[in-house]
């Protein structure tokens, strides 16, 4: 990837608003909601298909609080991400090729996820303890990791088809 600073920020916001929002809407009902979220949560329903027994995840009724948490997380990922992009752009200056390998973007999910976990507590998107064994952690971890991976997969592939100029103009969309 040959990002410009503007291209990085635009790409981040675009991916959050498209892949991020869509995936969050799909996955929220399936996430293991923490106990304080009352009745949300994931269940497994056994299903007989010919001779094969499979488990299908089925949604419980997610509460507005669950959606508030997941969409809040995506929103904060985008907002805090702008700051991260400034840092990445600075680090890019020390690379001779002034490029940003896709692997860096993928792995950046680890520090970003950890920082985001604290940030969403700070702004009260997520309540309770910030300890990593918090009951809310599984929901956050599954949601964030799957969203990050999908955004990355979209970026290294279909993004080039959706916006032809993107890869020619340093990641800029407009």
């Amino acid at each position, binding site marked *: 990837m*040959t*990002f*410009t*600073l503007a*291209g990085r920020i635009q790409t981040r916001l675009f991916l959050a608003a498209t892949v991020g929002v869509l995936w969050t809407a799909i996955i929220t009902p399936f996430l293991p909601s923490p106990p304080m979220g009352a009745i949300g949560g994931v269940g497994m329903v056994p299903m007989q298909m010919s001779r094969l027994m499979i488990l299908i995840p089925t949604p419980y009724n997610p509460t507005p609080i669950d959606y508030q948490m997941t969409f809040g997380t995506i929103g904060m990922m985008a907002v805090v991400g702008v700051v991260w992009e400034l840092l990445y752009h600075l680090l*890019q*200056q*020390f690379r*001779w*090729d*002034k*490029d940003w*390998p*896709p*692997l*860096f973007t*993928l792995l950046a999910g680890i520090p970003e996820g950890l920082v985001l976990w604290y940030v969403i507590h700070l702004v009260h998107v997520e309540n309770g303890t910030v300890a990593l064994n918090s009951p809310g952690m599984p929901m956050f971890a599954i949601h964030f990791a799957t969203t990050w991976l999908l955004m990355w997969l979209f970026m*290294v*592939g*279909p993004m*080039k*088809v*959706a*916006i*032809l*100029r993107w*890869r*020619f*103009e*340093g990641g800029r969309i407009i």
Partner: protein
Amino acid sequence: MSDHATLGARVKEKQVVKASRVPSLTADLASSCVWDDNMVADSQLRQRDVSFVTIGGGIGSFALVDTLRIAGVSAENISVIGPFANAYESLKSLLINSQIPDSHRIRSGSSDRMDNIWGWPGYGMAEAFRRKNPLLLMHLAAEPVLCEYYTPRASDVYASMDREAERISWHQMFTPGKVPLVRKRREGGYFVVVVPPDNADSTSDVSDSKLEIIRARYVHLSLGAAGLRILPDLESYRAITGDMNHVVNVYEPHEHVYRALIERPGSSVLVRGAATSAMEVIGRLIHDRNSHDSKVVIYHLLHHYVKEPKGSPMWRIPGGNGFAYQAFTFTKGAYGGQLQDRWRSLRSDEDRTRLLGLLASTAIPKRRQWLRELARGTSEGWYKMLAGSAAGLQKGDNEKIVATIDHNTADHHDDHGSENAASTLEVDYVIDCTGVTVDVRDHEVLADLIDCGGAGLNAIGQLAVNRSFEVEGAYSGNGKVFTTGFSALGNPYVVPMYSFWGYQYCALTIANSLANEGFCNRINTRRSIGGWWRLVRNRTP
């Protein structure tokens, strides 16, 4: 391919070229820079109308035609004129000369696909599926951090272009021939003179009935490297000695050198240059050493011996073992990234020359296999690296060549030559891989466009273009001449002009500008996805 800085810096002095002497043009036409419909009708020459003509028929033409077809231009409205029916033919012969046969990999990335302007799925992903090799997908995800860049096999590039040519009706648009002249049309647009290929072995002039004139609104020129010239010291050696065999440039056919080295085991060869083509040549020599027992001794002359990474923290080029390392011909960020922005922000030629020196550093991709072989050659004594600059070639005794090497310019290197010294070296052959010169006037049609068509030149003597790659000064009514590739080198917008990426970037820019004029559709998201889906299903655009 070769080094951009060398190309730019060594553009030859301009010589005045007289207007072309095309056989069978009427005196009226030959002497007028602007033609009108009546003059052409009076000439009785064959004539046809096409909206868009691209001249060259190589990679540059292919990229633009492919993009225009996707942007909704029908095949009837496009004409392609060139010497070879397959767009990759010229590229292929240059690659073969520089020791990249079909089975070898070219120095280009996975997503710069000549048959797919979207670049996805890239060459790498396609190869992973074809060879059912999921490891390759992991390689693509990990490059260039954990492994070297994936690069496509030359044969895969050609095969995929064959498929795309079929899909966009390339061969229906193609007319074999040479274009000596593009003249302005008084009513707007241009007249393109096409001389069919002289397939008869007679020396007679082309007959009137064969010459064709195409009336077009838009003309695109992408004539490629046909005008490449060897360096002055090679030229003068050949002129003085009359020996055309023992001193060659890597882009010339020079298979005879390898044959001779096998036939006379133990011969020596001097390879000059520290870029990829030198490494490919050395790779071939080592291959012949291993499988034909040629016992060849390789002297490798580098301008500088690069001991370690060099430069300020922000501009530190990786290096070691004598070489600077860079994955592609240009620094990656010049391919549309922040360095392209930087390039565009510069206002003076000095600043551009300085930046180009960095972006087009002489370097090789760090391929472990190459370095291993060179280390083996050094320890076994048949590979010797020399640092210095070439300072003359003379004919010696027994068919030998005496190469003088000036070590003054070189960085100090332990083994070879002290400072303030020159040395001579006797070898059987010299293969120069340091560069070539390009002269825009080597192409008759470009010379005529400058002399007669009002085309301007830029600071390095190539055609001056605007942001949409329109040739400045060559406008004719509502008509435009575009140029991409070598003849637009030195423009203040794009650096990697002769890369797959560069050709496609220029094509997209031109298509956007033509969409503004209503000639084609803009490739917006809807058209882009639709066009890609048609490509995936191999349907006509």
